[in-house]
């Protein structure tokens, strides 16, 4: 606890100047004893060593489940398989696209002291605040699942690195529902018709893109206009945009060669009109250019969601290739676009039922083999790939590619307390729409990230 009368200590001239301003304001208003306006640090040694103490348990009580509409059928399937389970199912936006609905509500529940859902589906970003108390003396929303809730053997079976966003202070606060490893999607029929080679490096991808622009104007090899395009491209390029060097320090350096190589590559393709600045998922894209997408570097769910559902590309045309590499680099790295997590509330009065549901949802092969997205749990992923409904749409077998990419997700793109989509969508995308180049926008993007990071309590380094 900080004692009154002291300003939060800090270094640097700026802090000193602020302090001076604050002090003089205090003096001007003749107010005695101004305490710091900064919120008291809440994350100090929380959860770290202390054991998790559940509330009084009642194994017969009803549990409330918050899910997004995509995963609703799975929760309903659990209810069907377990008629005795008492579930109250609520759908919400699932924290998609940087929504803060869940966070807002948990803030409110923390203040009311009741109302928390027992099980929630959320984004990895949600875990960053859910694993911390929202105010002094509050219990973090997410229960540490590794403490007598989910067996370690089960946790060990999740795909390599897929639980990293769940882990804080040595504990696991969520289980991953699905991963969205980035692969190179392409239209096999068109590629064969035009006698193009599927690229394996970014350089080949760029060359092919420029060639397509010349030979088949109007056709596209990608889009950077979606709210998550930065994860498809800059994450895959190992750009240090959101890199936590330690839990409280964020490194964001968009002048790093790993960033500029990608921005320059994309700029050349954008100006050749081979890469669109209009998002794949924007309102008119499917109508105007849906049938003209030759390649798309994007997550594993593009196959079903983008090509099948949105573009209505006929079956047996689309397939995926392994993540692209940079020439001269031996190991491939790829990005990840989304992939939800399930959390159990630490306030739940029926942890047993809540954990049982969570475990079933993420690890049951019967359930996950029919899931809409690629399971993070390895045995379930195998069952998913073996399920014909997940593969019959594609022109070739994608399981090898998916499994390989799942192991290549670059770990240098950290899960921060703020969504990586906000700055990209509100700063970079409007600039691209107005015709600025991506490379020229990098400084603005970097400072937006830095501002957001500072507002969320990170120290920021740009080296």
């Amino acid at each position, binding site marked *: 606890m900080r004692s009154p009368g002291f300003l939060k200590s800090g270094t640097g001239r700026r802090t000193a100047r602020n302090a001076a301003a604050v002090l003089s304001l205090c003096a001007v208003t003749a107010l005695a004893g101004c*305490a*710091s306006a900064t919120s008291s640090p809440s994350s100090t040694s929380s959860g770290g060593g202390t054991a998790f103490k559940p509330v009084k348990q009642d194994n017969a009580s009803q549990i409330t489940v918050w899910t997004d509409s995509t995963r609703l059928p799975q929760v309903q399937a659990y209810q069907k398989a377990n008629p005795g389970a008492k579930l109250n199912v609520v759908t919400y936006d699932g924290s998609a696209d940087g929504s*803060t609905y869940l966070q807002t509500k948990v803030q409110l529940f923390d203040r009311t002291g009741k109302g928390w859902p027992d099980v929630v589906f959320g984004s990895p970003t949600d875990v960053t605040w859910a694993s911390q108390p929202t105010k002094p003396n509050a219990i973090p929303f997410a229960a540490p699942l590794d403490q007598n809730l989910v067996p370690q053997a089960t946790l060990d079976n999740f795909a390599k690195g897929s639980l990293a966003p769940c882990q804080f202070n040595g504990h696991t606060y969520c289980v991953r529902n699905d991963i969205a490893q980035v692969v190179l999607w392409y239209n096999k029929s068109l590629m064969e018709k035009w006698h193009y080679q599927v690229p394996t490096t970014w350089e080949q991808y760029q060359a092919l893109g420029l060639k397509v622009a010349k030979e088949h104007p109007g056709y596209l090899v990608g889009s950077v206009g979606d709210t998550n395009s930065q994860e498809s491209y800059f994450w895959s390029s190992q750009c240090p945009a959101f890199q936590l060097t330690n839990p409280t320090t964020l490194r964001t350096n968009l002048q790093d060669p790993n960033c500029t190589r990608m921005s320059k590559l994309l700029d050349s393709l954008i100006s050749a009109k081979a890469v669109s600045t209009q998002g794949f998922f924007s309102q008119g894209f499917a109508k105007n250019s849906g049938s003209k997408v030759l390649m798309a570097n994007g997550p594993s769910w593009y196959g079903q969601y983008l090509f099948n559902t949105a573009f209505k590309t006929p079956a047996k045309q689309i397939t995926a290739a392994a993540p692209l590499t940079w020439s001269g680099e031996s190991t491939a790295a790829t990005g990840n676009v989304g992939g939800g997590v399930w959390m159990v509330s630490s306030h739940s009065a029926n942890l047993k039922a809540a954990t049982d549901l969570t475990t079933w949802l993420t690890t049951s092969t019967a359930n996950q083999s029919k899931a809409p997205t690629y399971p993070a749990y390895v045995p379930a992923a195998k069952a998913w790939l073996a399920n014909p409904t997940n593969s019959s749409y594609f022109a070739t077998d994608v399981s090898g590619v998916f499994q390989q990419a799942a192991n290549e997700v670059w770990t240098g793109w950290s899960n921060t307390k703020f969504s990586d989509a906000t700055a990209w969508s509100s700063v970079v995308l409007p600039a691209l729409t*107005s015709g600025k180049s991506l490379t020229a926008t990098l400084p603005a993007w970097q400072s937006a990230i830095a501002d957001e990071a500072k507002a969320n309590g990170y120290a920021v380094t740009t080296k």
Partner: protein
Amino acid sequence: MTVLDTRHTTVSPSRRGLTPRRGGGGGAAGYLFVAGYTILLLAFGVFPTGYSFYLALTNDQGQFTGLNQFVKVIQDYRFVPAFTNILVYLVMWLVLLVVLTVLVAVVLRSRMRPGLSALFRFLYYIPGALAGVASVLVWLFMLDPDVSPASWLLNSLGFHSFAAVLAPGNLPVIFVLIAFWTGAGGWMVVMYGALNNIPDEVLEAAKMDGAGPWKTAWHIQIPMIRQWIAYMTILAFAAGTQLFVEPQLLQTASLGRVSPTWSPNQLAYVFAFQQGDFNGAAAISVFLLALGLICAGLLVTRSNLFTLDEK
């Protein structure tokens, strides 16, 4: 269509003063009459205002912080953009509202047959039913060149995609369009009613003096409805500072192209619920409150609008 005839339906306070009739009124009875309302006023008007100030002057441990919360939020990188946005929006919105509603009301009142004028007023007024979330949703589609019935206009202005329409510089215009669409019709009807209250003899006299319709409007009609214009400006201003739903929904619908802290109210919301900083949020609220009260106060005193009591 008789419903639409708004002539002579207005309360005409001009003939009687606002003189409360005293004498018979006993004190106790008065308290009983206002008791229920007073409780609500204390609970949802006075107390929250006081609590806002308390929060803005303390930190999360209840320690007194002087003006530090205010200093903190001013220095936040989102503060200046948010308040700049809202000011630009307010200026555009109020100018457009005042100029167009008064102009249209004058035209509808003095230069058109009553029946047709009623039809026009009715049609202008109908979108008011779609206030709030509904209006934003409708305009999402109006502004999307792919589905909009006005796509030719958007295209000719150089906007070929929804994303291009949502360029940061366009946002205040978009919010003004939405606000005008839902709100202006109602105000036109009100202004029309106000013009209707002007005795015909006054207008006849002007005509005798050889004043044309524009001159009459400028020198007689508009000055006579000055108070109502001020009244409209205040209410529109108060509503305008609260802008929240519009940018919030647009942010969702544009997949994040609109900043989540576009308006000050949104910024307060983010402070409170994303950063868990209720004190900082309260400080922003106090800024908004001050802004609203100062401007309303200026207008009220300058236009002598609300006479609190009998003369």
